[in-house]
């Protein structure tokens, strides 16, 4: 067990990060599955992180209550901004949600209670490995159930053809709002978990770059099913660590890997249809 303790003391933060990033990638997977290209999830994560950290620091709430609040606060915000913003589609929605993210970042930067640019320090380390594992498992299970229900089919139908979806009796506006809000809940909980193992949070962690990172994880892994985002999140988190020996070339190789994947695997790394194609070719080759 000694090797495990050594490993854990060195890499536990990294393992935690993989879990949190997987949650974030799943949150964007959910909104993408309804055809919504949203860049708001980093901001939702930030809202969850700040609300939960402040509740812990100032009011001393219990950790489960803090996590719940970390999920509900961004959901409330998503509910309010969703009605006007979700009238937009495609890149216009991306632009509006990007602007929303900046509003959140600048607000946090200038408020006193959030510690401004210095952020919040000394957040108790309440997150444990099994918290992340449990929440990730519940999220995966919930999303898997959702996919196979009328809700998942409605999301997919909306993504493919909104007009046809409406004529199938689907209330498109309500389902879009549902996807947006549920995505905010998952991102918010991820933010709350993250805040309670990094000790310190600042507005810098929830800006545009992070919004793009979150989308990159989902798209790199593949959005066909739930395996893709988790895989993408793991790769994006672990790759810089695995390339540590390359020193100065690290970010170069990191970027090159992403470019190659996007060029040659446009549907992401985990693409069941491509796998099926390979399988058929192998079978065909034998016959």
């Amino acid at each position, binding site marked *: 067990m000694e090797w495990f303790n050594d490993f854990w003391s060195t890499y536990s933060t990294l393992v935690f990060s993989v879990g949190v990033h997987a949650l974030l990638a799943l949150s964007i997977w959910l909104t993408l599955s309804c055809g919504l290209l949203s860049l708001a999830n980093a901001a939702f994560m930030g809202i969850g992180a700040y609300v939960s950290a402040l509740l812990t620091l100032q009011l001393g709430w219990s950790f489960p209550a803090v996590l719940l609040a970390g999920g509900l606060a961004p959901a409330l915000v998503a509910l309010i901004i969703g009605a006007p913003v979700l009238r937009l589609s495609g890149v216009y929605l991306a632009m509006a949600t990007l602007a929303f993210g900046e509003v959140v970042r600048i607000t946090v930067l200038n408020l006193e209670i959030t510690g401004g640019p210095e952020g919040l320090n000394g957040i108790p380390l309440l997150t444990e490995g099994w918290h992340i594992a449990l929440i990730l498992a519940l999220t995966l299970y*919930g999303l898997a*159930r*959702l996919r*196979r*229900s*009328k*809700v998942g*089919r*409605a999301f*997919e*139908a909306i993504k*493919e*053809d909104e*007009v*046809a*979806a*409406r*004529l*199938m*009796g*689907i*209330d*498109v506006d309500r389902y879009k709002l549902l996807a947006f809000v549920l995505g905010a809940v998952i991102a918010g909980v991820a933010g709350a978990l993250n805040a309670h193992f990094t000790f310190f949070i600042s507005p810098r962690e929830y800006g545009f770059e992070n919004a793009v990172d979150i989308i990159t994880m989902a798209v790199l892994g593949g959005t066909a099913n739930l395996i893709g985002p988790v895989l993408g999140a793991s790769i994006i988190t672990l790759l810089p660590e695995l390339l540590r020996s390359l020193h100065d070339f690290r970010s170069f190789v990191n970027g090159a890997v992403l470019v190659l994947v996007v060029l040659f695997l446009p549907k992401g790394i985990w693409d069941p249809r491509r796998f099926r194609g390979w399988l058929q070719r192998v079978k065909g080759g034998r016959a």
Partner: protein
Amino acid sequence: MSDPTLLSIRNVGKHFGGLHVLQDVSFEVPAGSIYGLIGPNGAGKTTVFNLVTGLLEPSNGTIEFMGNSLVGLPPQRITHRGIARTFQNIRIFKEMSLLENVMVGMHDHLNYSPAAIFFNTGACRSAEKRARERAFELLSWVGLEHKSDMLADNLSYGDQRKLEFARALATEPKLLLLDEPVAGMNPSEKTILMEEIRNIRDRGYGVFMIEHDMRFVMGLCDRIAVLNFGRIIAEGTPDEVRNNPDVIEAYLGKEDEA
């Protein structure tokens, strides 16, 4: 039946700015019959469908379905009332399987709660199972049951039309709107579809179709309305319409012009 009228369109006009697409259009689609809407290209036929299904709102006039006004209702509410349609330029969900396509049509009739979805309760499982069976049944109705797991994108043009047809029936409509249902089909497929549409009528549904194929329309419809430049120029049984001089003129031009 006390009120045999299913759909009643009265004095409906639609204009986009100064462009009058429809003017003073009135006709009634009776229950249990096949009603045809024909007319030259650009006459405004698809606009009529878009008004009935709520994708557009009429500029004036009334549209009633079983005695209740449809004007101002969003499309999903109109589907809920019992009107389904297919599209001229097929709009199936290409990245979904055939079975899933049809199951999307049953959206309104699956009434399990979010909690039932998460906990996978017996009620949710049995509702999904029934929906799958019903979807399979509808697919076999149009002869696609052996392709139920295929992606819709991989279907031939004619099969995509059939799938759209099955998906529309899945919403459990009382009135089925078909926008050029036989476009791109070969003669034997047309004959089969004709039989299927008659079947649907005989089960008590109303069918309201736009079609270019004259032989198909004349052989199938109980009544026909003819639209030309946004106005109804004739209405009646196929024989009445066929011999109407205005209709002949609209389709073939005036004799002295020839």
